[in-house]
């Protein structure tokens, strides 16, 4: 299988927040690639940098506190970090679209569904009148909003949670983006609605060939929808690989701990394995591995230096001293 040139290349991305309490290194050297049609899951706890990574890709990091201080974000070979604000506005919504966690707050309660779905189409494709209406209806029916014509004049409060998230997704996909960033898209949905939404996302993605970055803290979602997974901790990717590989051979102690601490439906009620301690303070990161204080496999070297990248298998990498016996000497 010849590897096609990746759609997105992120190299050593660094986004820091400059606060009174010091510099919080929210994203601190993140690199990954993504091909067309592929789904990469970004997993980690709150504060691990997954959302800030996504915001950095579309240059929506809250300024002036937050700043992208280094790295490259290449979309089809063009560095998004070098683009002007006006150029970025043409990228957002057209080439890269986002779906956020809570559709109640990401939709405008005062505008009709038709207006909101049509906004991107008007701005990016200059559509008006009947052709605009046709595309709006098309976008809504692709996300299985029933009777879309009757729905155009309605407001978000007239929709249920699951439908609102489908409307958000219809907006995101309306201009046929190359990359869709979905930031915890199902966290506010019920389990049954979540299952519906994830199925639909997979279908729509396959039909449109769009690449997806799926931010989540739920390994169930990773298992269902992701081709590859990147586990983040304290602003860095600590392990990345094909989903099946990472589930079967988790190589970073943090990934192993995350996978072990999930209560499983099919299994009885033995005590859950905990990860002791708390995530580190991002403005006071240690010199060595930031997971070391919570790590069951901590060694002397872990406090000395950040572990190098260790290749486990084809496309499966981790940053851990314990996985790199040769590198220790």
């Amino acid at each position, binding site marked *: 299988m010849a590897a096609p040139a990746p759609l997105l290349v992120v190299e050593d991305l660094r986004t820091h927040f400059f606060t009174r309490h010091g510099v919080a290194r929210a994203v601190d050297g993140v690199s990954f690639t993504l091909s067309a049609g592929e789904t990469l899951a970004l997993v980690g706890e709150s504060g691990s940098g997954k959302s800030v990574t996504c915001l950095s890709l579309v240059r929506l990091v809250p300024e002036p506190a937050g700043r992208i201080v280094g790295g490259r974000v290449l979309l089809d070979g063009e560095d998004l970090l070098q683009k002007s604000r006006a150029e970025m506005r043409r990228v957002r919504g057209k080439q890269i679209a986002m779906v956020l966690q809570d559709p109640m707050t990401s939709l405008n309660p005062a505008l009709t569904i038709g207006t909101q779905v049509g906004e991107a189409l008007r701005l990016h494709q200059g559509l008006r009148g009947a052709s605009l209406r046709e595309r709006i209806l098309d976008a809504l029916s692709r996300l299985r909003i029933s009777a879309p014509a009757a729905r155009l004049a309605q407001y978000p409060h007239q929709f249920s949670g699951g439908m609102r998230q489908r409307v958000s997704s219809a907006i995101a996909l309306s201009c046929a983006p190359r990359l869709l960033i979905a930031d915890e898209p199902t966290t506010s949905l019920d389990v*049954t609605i979540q*299952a519906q939404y994830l199925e639909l996302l997979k279908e729509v993605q396959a039909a449109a060939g769009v690449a997806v970055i799926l931010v989540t803290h739920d390994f169930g979602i990773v298992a269902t929808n992701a081709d590859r997974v990147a586990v983040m901790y304290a602003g860095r990717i600590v392990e990345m690989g094909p989903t*099946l590989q990472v589930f079967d051979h988790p190589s970073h102690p943090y990934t192993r*701990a995350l996978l072990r601490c999930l209560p499983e439906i099919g299994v009885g009620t033995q005590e*859950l394995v905990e990860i002791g301690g708390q995530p580190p303070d991002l403005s006071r990161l240690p010199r060595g591995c930031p997971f070391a204080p919570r790590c069951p496999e901590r060694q002397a070297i872990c406090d000395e230096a950040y572990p190098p990248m260790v290749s486990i298998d084809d496309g499966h990498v981790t940053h851990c001293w314990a996985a790199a016996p040769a590198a220790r000497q």
Partner: protein
Amino acid sequence: MAALLEGTDLRKHFPVTGGLALGGARAWIRAVDGVSVHVGEGETLGIVGESGSGKTTLAKLFLLLERPTAGALSFDGKDVRGFDRADLARYRRAVQAVFQDPYSSLNPRMRVEQIVAEPLPRDNGMGRAEVRRRVGDVLELVGLRRESAALYPHEFSGGQRQRIAIARALVTSPRLIVLDEPVSALDVSIRAQILNLLKRLQGELGLAYVMISHDLAAARYLATRLVVMYAGKVVETGACDAVYAEPLHPYTQALLSAALPLHPSARRQRIVLGGEVPNPTSPPPGCRFHPRCQSALPQCRSEEPAWKEVRPGRSTACHLY
């Protein structure tokens, strides 16, 4: 097992009024519509269902934050409607609550000591030193340091805040704690800590829990008995293990199959439910689940299924049985 808290045919209907509808309600939301449940001493009753199923309203009825429209609630065999002031005060000490979001359930302007001591009655006969000792004791019980008492909530992480909320619930030495989605707002790695803590406390203190959850795995971990709710009604009850091993009601089956697998190669047979939870002002006639049910029979459309004990300890309301 003697019932500690027992609800019989509980109903809670909320009026829907228009902007200036002086003539009374235009419609009624039947949030809880004929629910009978009981919780025994020291056991955990799990209540699961989607949003809009009435589980949170049921929790509010248990906490006496809402009064039932109809039906009876009794505690230790005594009907709450017959409670005098002293009974009520005793009930509030014996039944405590832990809520979902520890960011909004703790007052940011109060120190942890005030927060945790708040449920103690004013005339508790305890001196300040004694209150302080009691607060320190429960903080240690939930795995926080005694010195935490002097701090404010913003100085704690989400998991630690939920520990503070649990300490507040424990300070009156309750017999029952209503846990409303106690881990849904927390990170996965912290969830395990809190679930283990709740389980340990139950063992040490002999507490009974009512755990409201849409997280089926978390409910499974704590609950001994399970109540599955749909559109204001109970559709199935039974011992937790039995319900998970062999769900009887088609809704329970769909709910369990909608839970995501924990491994990518676990290709379970999925029943993906179409549609949404029905509008609570005009629930469908017959069985409320029939518009989404894959095994619906003709009578499901018109006839409400009766509550049946299908086998010992397992009851469901479904025409299939």
